[in-house]
């Protein structure tokens, strides 16, 4: 589950990670008030006004501004709230901004040089352990850093039995070239950041940049936090942060039917039991001359109700020219699924795209008979290759 920047920072703060003083605002007036409160607390006379959407690269699309007065905070908030922010990570139509985060300015002048550092915590799948990945070249795309200067990326693996150790935090701070107060602050920062990661059962923390101020303080200037969906059952407080409006409405609806759905932009819809077979079905649609319109896993218990739900969601997409239903019946009996398809078809009423039904496994022959005799505009197949050939024919 993805979090907004302000939500991620609230978790960081809870574990003692230093973040800029900030408040979230839904209206320009709230933003103005937030800025005044931050000024009283910190003395800051400049503020960052940052659009809160689930996508990176917000600055490039005009979603992050530095205000030099309280009135400017209001003006920028007016501009940003309600805009459709387009960034390299959003679709072309952008994302509607409903909230801004107002923060104290940390890019102030002072005795030492400021610097931007990259830091993330993620799973090293090859090793089955978490690691901290960091680089003195922060504030830019880490993939670019990896390509240009791979020697500037460091990793520190954490032993799950003992957790993060002090020597590891020191190593990070030394490798980043810090000294004095900045070094001490960084040691604390790394330790707290890992504790926050562990405590929230996150699957990714990306803090880019971690900012060293001109008076040697260390702040998490941004936060990308992804929480492991499988651990949400033990974090009801984090689950409450879920922002459904940031998710694709079809995907939200699909989850109500216990369907695992991902919207794509092709012309052949598909509905499959099992994630691996679902991806394989998308691939076979492509090989047959089509483009998959979605990923849809109906799970282990394909029944009439979720098959109907799946059809309804796929049929909303006007680009869909046909639907391939691919079920390998194991525990699920194919004739039951076939009956589900017939019922769903009748319930929905006006399905005007052709449907290819491939049912293989338990009672496959019986299922094919059921479909063939239903009188519906449904083509049936048993072998996977036959289903693929039907897709090709359908697109001609």
């Amino acid at each position, binding site marked *: 589950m993805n979090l907004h920047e302000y939500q991620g920072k609230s978790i960081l703060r809870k574990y003692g990670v230093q973040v800029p003083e900030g408040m979230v605002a839904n209206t320009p007036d709230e933003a103005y008030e937030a800025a005044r409160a931050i000024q009283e607390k910190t003395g800051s006379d400049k503020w960052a006004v940052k659009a809160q959407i689930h996508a990176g690269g917000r600055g490039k699309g005009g979603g992050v501004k530095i205000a030099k007065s309280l009135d400017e905070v209001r003006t920028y908030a007016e501009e940003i709230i309600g805009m459709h922010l387009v960034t390299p990570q959003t679709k072309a139509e952008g994302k509607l901004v409903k909230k801004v985060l107002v923060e104290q300015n940390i890019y102030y002048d002072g005795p030492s040089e400021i610097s931007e550092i990259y830091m993330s915590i993620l*799973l090293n799948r090859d090793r*089955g352990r978490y690691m901290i990945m960091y680089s003195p070249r922060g504030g830019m795309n880490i993939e670019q850093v990896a390509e240009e200067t791979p020697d500037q990326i460091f990793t520190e693996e954490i032993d*799950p039995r003992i957790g993060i150790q002090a020597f590891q935090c020191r190593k990070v701070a030394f490798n980043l070239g810090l000294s004095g107060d900045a070094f001490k602050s960084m040691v604390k920062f790394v330790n707290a950041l890992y504790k926050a990661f562990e405590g929230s*059962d996150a*699957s990714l923390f990306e803090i880019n940049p971690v900012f060293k101020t001109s008076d040697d303080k260390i702040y998490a200037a941004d936060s990308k936090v992804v929480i492991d969906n499988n651990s949400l059952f033990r974090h009801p407080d984090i689950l409450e942060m879920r922002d459904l409006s940031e998710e694709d409405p079809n995907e939200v609806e699909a989850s109500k039917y216990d369907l695992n759905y991902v919207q794509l932009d092709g012309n052949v819809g598909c509905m*499959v*039991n*099992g994630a691996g077979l679902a991806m394989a079905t998308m691939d076979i649609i492509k090989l047959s001359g089509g483009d998959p319109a979605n*990923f849809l896993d109906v799970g282990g218990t394909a029944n009439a109700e979720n098959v109907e739900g799946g059809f309804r969601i796929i049929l909303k997409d006007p680009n869909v020219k046909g639907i391939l239903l691919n079920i390998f019946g194991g525990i699920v009996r194919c004739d039951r699924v076939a009956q589900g398809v017939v019922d769903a078809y009748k319930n929905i009423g006006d399905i005007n795209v052709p449907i290819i039904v491939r049912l293989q496994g338990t009672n496959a022959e019986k299922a094919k008979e059921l479909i063939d005799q239903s009188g519906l505009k449904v083509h049936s197949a048993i072998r996977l290759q036959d289903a693929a050939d039907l897709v090709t024919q359908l697109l001609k």
Partner: protein
Amino acid sequence: MSVLVNKGSKIVVQGFTGSEGTFHATQMIEYGTNVVGGVTPGKGGQTHLDRPVFNTVSDAVKQTGADVSVIFVPPAFAADAVMEAADAGIRVIVCITEGIPTTDMVKVKEYLKDKECRLIGPNCPGVITPEGAKVGIMPGFIHEPGCVGIVSRSGTLTYEAVDQLTKTGLGQTTAIGVGGDPVPGTSIKEAVELFMNDPETEGVVMIGEIGGNMEAEAAYWIKDNGTKPVVSFIAGATAPKGRTMGHAGAIIGGKADTADAKKAILRECGIHVVDSPADIGSKMAELLNK
């Protein structure tokens, strides 16, 4: 011969009396699997499906000599169940449970390092040796004893491959589902290695998908150590970047995660990659001249 499980395996079911455990244990017994009992804490001493129920895996091992366990325990308690089985001296632990927090699996993996056991899964269909033992949730009837070993990260896609191999008459020695999670107990490479060392296995089918490095790791190992033909399909050539495709581990982060990148490495290492999942069985038949 076969790998991991066979007619002689004594299987204990963890989460025996729950609905999932009951349903699948029944199917396993009907298939002819030697299920010697089950574990449900607090229900020790009872009888379920004509078999004894124990409070702990340790009790089950002592009284039945069980050496294989299959886990149908809800995600919140599954990691604990795996460690309990390992502690009790179980040799092969098959964890079917989907949805275990990754942080739990990271700890489990560490815990298992100095134990003499192998974990298969989690989030997998299990392991089956046709006519020997069905330890998992796969449909038994599509399998036939034969000469091909299968390793896969998926469930139904494995059944698809099994079905094709059965219909070409090749059959299977053993089919292993290593699971769709980012931290699996057994890697694809380790499963392939088991098949390369099994005298009855003549060819190996390796079914991978987007995300992670397991297929590449297996491919490099096969290049140096492989003695049998390997046919592979990698699912997700059409999957978009950055989205989790059903399995928690099926996500494209960087370039090496894509199906195309994996296929290129596999081909370089001499593996017979098929682009269509419909060609798995026929390709293996062609290679084995059968």
